[in-house]
């Protein structure tokens, strides 16, 4: 990394950014045109971390050379990416990269109490972009020798050790440190260096931790993650994780020493960069947001609620390598319920297995696409459930509250999740299943079913998965990152309005009147008036660049954010899928009877124009004959 040579921000015109993924290395070229930065070209090539190449820079060269071919310009010489722009035709001003190649950053966390310090450590590691292989705690229910074997077997890239509040007891965190010392773990990459261990626990235990682990590990001390019970301080630990990622993990991975010399800023772990991008969006628009990246092996969920950023990785929920795990965890019935077609369950299981063993194949027939999108719904649903459990307030914190009778009572206010589907303003999806769905409305419909947003929510997808590059760019040139995100990365699918019914409301009361009535005032003076009944969905055309005033008047048993029966006045933005009204109720309840359920699904699919009707009819008719 050669930051001293970096061009001043205002003079930066041409930017190259790469993301070295586990299978593909993606390069983008960004350039200032007039007053704004735009994506000019992109290129990709297979990642070259593994044998026989074992040099990540080969993949980077190939991806960048694709951009060279497409633009007829030069960005590479024998020393790498040319970061001193010599002319309009040669070189760039800034080169950045992210990486998740070679398995990304794999960490183990350890703490004292599973739901307290260990969970804080997990949040710190995940937020830094790591995969958490295991979380060890004094009270995790495993025998000590089992924990030791686990630490030894996993061979993480680093360990984050936490435990105890400052000034509290040191014996428990000492016990965990002793377990780590006993395991004498070896790092995954490079046999010659000592495993990095970051200690972020009770500061009074530092000398004992040093005695126990100082000789066996590359020990780093940072501020306590939980200096007091009521406060979580994740920043210093996350920063140290990033430092160690550069110093150790990247330095050991093949070719990264070279790549680090090429880049103008530190290489970030891909999910860490995506998280940074998501936080920027939340800050820029001052909104609460959920971001999701559904990959082949894992599904990452990011969120910002009440100003708090969280990230989780559902390590075994994905659409190819891990697709059978989606089947295993969700169960066949949960996948089957999203299918509007009569598919033989045994055949469905075989197909899912075949996708696992041949992960690069794509749906050729409509039926195959529908099956994959059903599986994606379950992967997304479970990933968000997982996220909700970790994106929570600090557990174990008791607040003392004096009530009217002046007696003391303890209120546990912090066990609930921060994720609030009513207040979330935007859900941003990426990953093959969402970014590459043949019709954009399919992405919107999948996210609607899987996440079941409430009230007014904007839906969007990342067009070509540029979030990693834009995340790392935002740390160096925020303006360029924001402009490219807005103009070239974000595809606005549209806004969905989902009224939520009163719990225990009788079905006949819900069906009695419209779930909501909507009046949209268009900028040209025109008005759209719509209403929707319980159980229905509607799609209204509203173009991507249109922002309109809307008055949403829910029925007396329905809430769109302000309470039951209370009108919401708001601005609504259109998108490629327009404005969607979803009055199916929350939680979404599908009929138990298969025939009735399929009929219901087909009705919604038709209303939203999700699939080509001719091809779909052919499958439906085939099913009937069968």
């Amino acid at each position, binding site marked *: 990394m050669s930051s001293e040579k970096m061009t001043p921000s205002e003079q930066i015109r041409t930017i190259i950014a790469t993301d070295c993924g586990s299978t593909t290395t993606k390069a983008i070229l960004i350039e200032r045109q007039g007053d704004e930065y735009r994506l000019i070209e992109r290129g990709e090539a297979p990642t070259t971390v593994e044998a026989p190449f074992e040099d990540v820079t080969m993949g980077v060269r190939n991806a960048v050379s694709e951009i060279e071919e497409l633009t007829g310009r030069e960005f590479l010489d024998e020393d790498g990416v040319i970061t001193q722009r010599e002319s309009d035709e040669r070189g760039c001003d800034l080169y950045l990269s992210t990486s998740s190649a070679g398995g990304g950053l794999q960490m183990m966390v350890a703490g004292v109490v599973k739901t307290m310090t260990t969970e804080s450590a997990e949040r710190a590691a995940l937020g830094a972009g790591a995969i958490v292989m295991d979380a060890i705690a004094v009270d995790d229910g495993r025998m000590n020798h089992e924990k030791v074997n686990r630490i030894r077997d996993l061979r993480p890239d680093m360990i984050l050790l936490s435990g105890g509040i400052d000034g509290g007891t040191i014996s428990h965190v000492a*016990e965990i440190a002793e377990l780590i010392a006993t395991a004498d773990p070896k790092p995954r990459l490079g046999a010659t260096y000592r495993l990095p261990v970051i200690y972020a626990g009770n500061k009074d235990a530092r000398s004992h931790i040093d005695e126990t682990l100082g000789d066996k590990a590359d020990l780093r001390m940072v501020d306590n993650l939980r200096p007091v019970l009521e406060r979580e301080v994740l920043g210093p630990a996350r920063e140290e994780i990033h430092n160690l990622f550069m110093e150790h993990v990247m330095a050991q991975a093949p070719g990264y020493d070279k790549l680090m010399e090429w880049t103008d800023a530190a290489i970030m772990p891909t999910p860490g960069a995506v998280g940074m991008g998501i936080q920027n969006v939340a800050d820029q628009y001052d909104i609460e947001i959920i971001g999701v990246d559904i990959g082949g092996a894992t599904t990452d969920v990011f969120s910002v609620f009440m100003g708090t950023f969280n990230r989780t990785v559902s390590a075994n929920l994905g659409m190819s390598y891990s697709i059978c795990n989606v089947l295993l965890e969700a169960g066949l019935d949960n996948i089957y319920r999203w299918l509007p077609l009569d598919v033989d369950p045994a055949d469905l299981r*075989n*197909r899912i297995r075949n996708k696992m*063993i041949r*992960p*690069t194949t794509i749906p050729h027939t*409509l039926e195959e696409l529908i099956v994959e999108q059903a599986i994606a719904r379950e992967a997304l649903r479970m990933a968000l459930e997982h996220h909700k459990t970790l994106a929570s307030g600090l557990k174990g914190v008791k607040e003392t509250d004096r009530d009217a009778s002046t007696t003391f009572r303890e209120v546990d206010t912090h066990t609930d999740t921060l994720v609030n589907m009513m207040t979330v303003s935007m859900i941003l999806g990426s990953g093959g299943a969402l970014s590459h769905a043949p019709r954009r409305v399919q992405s919107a419909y999948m996210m609607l079913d899987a996440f079941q947003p409430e009230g007014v929510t904007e839906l969007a997808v990342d067009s070509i998965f540029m979030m990693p590059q834009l995340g790392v760019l935002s740390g160096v040139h925020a303006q360029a990152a924001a402009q490219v995100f807005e103009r070239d990365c974000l595809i606005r699918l549209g806004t969905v309005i989902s009224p939520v019914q009163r719990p225990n409301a009788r079905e006949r009361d819900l069906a009695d009147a419209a779930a909501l009535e909507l009046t949209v005032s268009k900028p040209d003076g025109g008005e759209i008036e719509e209403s929707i009944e319980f159980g229905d969905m509607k799609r209204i055309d509203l173009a991507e660049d249109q922002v309109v005033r809307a008055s949403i008047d829910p029925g007396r048993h329905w809430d769109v954010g302000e309470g039951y029966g209370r009108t919401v006045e708001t601005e609504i933005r259109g998108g490629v899928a327009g404005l969607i009204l979803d009055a199916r109720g929350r939680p979404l309840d599908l009929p138990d009877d298969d025939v009735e359920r399929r009929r219901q699904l087909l009705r919604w699919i038709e209303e939203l124009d999700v699939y080509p009707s001719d*091809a779909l009819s052919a499958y439906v008719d085939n099913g009937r004959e069968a």
Partner: protein
Amino acid sequence: MAHAYTPGLKVSASETVRKERRLPLPGDVLVQEGDLVEPHQVVARTDIPGDPESLNIANLLGVEPEDIGEAMLVQEGDEVEKGQIIARTIAFFGLLKNEQRAPVSGTVEMISGVSGQVVFRAEPTPLEVEAYISGRVREVMPNEGVVIETAGAFIQGIFGVGGERLGEISILADAPDQQLDASAITEACRDKIIVIGSLASSEILHRAADVGAVGVVAGGVIDEDLVDYLGYDIGVAITGHEKIPVTLVLTEGFGPVPIADKTFELLQELEGRIASMSGATQIRAGVMRPEIICPDADLGEDFVDVGGDELAGGLVVGTPIRIIRQPYFGYLAEVTELPSALQEVESEATVRVLRARLMDGTEVLVPRANVEIIEGRSSLAK
């Protein structure tokens, strides 16, 4: 991307195969470069440190952690026998005695005056790595293991379960698409790797285990039959460690699928020969497929490197392919045209496609991502 197709599974009559045999921890390598080895020959050995066992002596004796040093009768590094008294406190002039005993035989690894824990390390257990295939030691990795090289037939499957096995290849199916009944598995299959056609049913797998067969090779398996045989469901495709008596290698996938003709014909040619097989599969970056390796009968000192590592040249008109996704899943075909423009398929995805002629002469259009090249040298005669 330049290579938007799946490299095929290798099915080759003549191939140089190298297998790395590595210890999980440093140890001793027992053979030398150039040595000829047999499959069951031990090539490297190490001792796996015993499991640690910890006791919180401070709690057990009712003393403060910093005081346990006075109570300990052994020191770090001492060897102890299970049941040996290792710590003692005496109170009230010897009237109250509290003693603690070693939970395992081994060594005292740590005595902590902070947590009050004492960690014992049980005695190490030896671990041996066998050669797995007959061949020659190509390379010795000091303290770590060896690379064994052999020449012979090499067949990669698409998915497997079960560990490394050695047995004689026996062909039970008359044709690659035959679905056998479990009654075809007889006592004659004991210690054999049996090739059974298009489907390994649950009955066949259980029957093969009952008669003592070591391996089953089939085109496909019904997902639920595999779950039944294993006794649990597989979530992520990382296999090879299952504790099952018969290793299964699928050449094509899930569901009844005929074994590809080329694979079946090669297996027929290998009938009666001794082969090594493994079901270990990892479908991740650094993919690992199950395999059947049948070294040539006479591996003299000077067997020649027959190569075989070259990748197929890519898709061209005439390339034999296997279609690996519906609606033509499992069909074999030959590429007839490679249009360069992207085309929309039924799912409305716009993708790179190819045209291919199926075995029955039908011309079909399929996404390039949904085919794999059939690779390797097809016959022992070549």
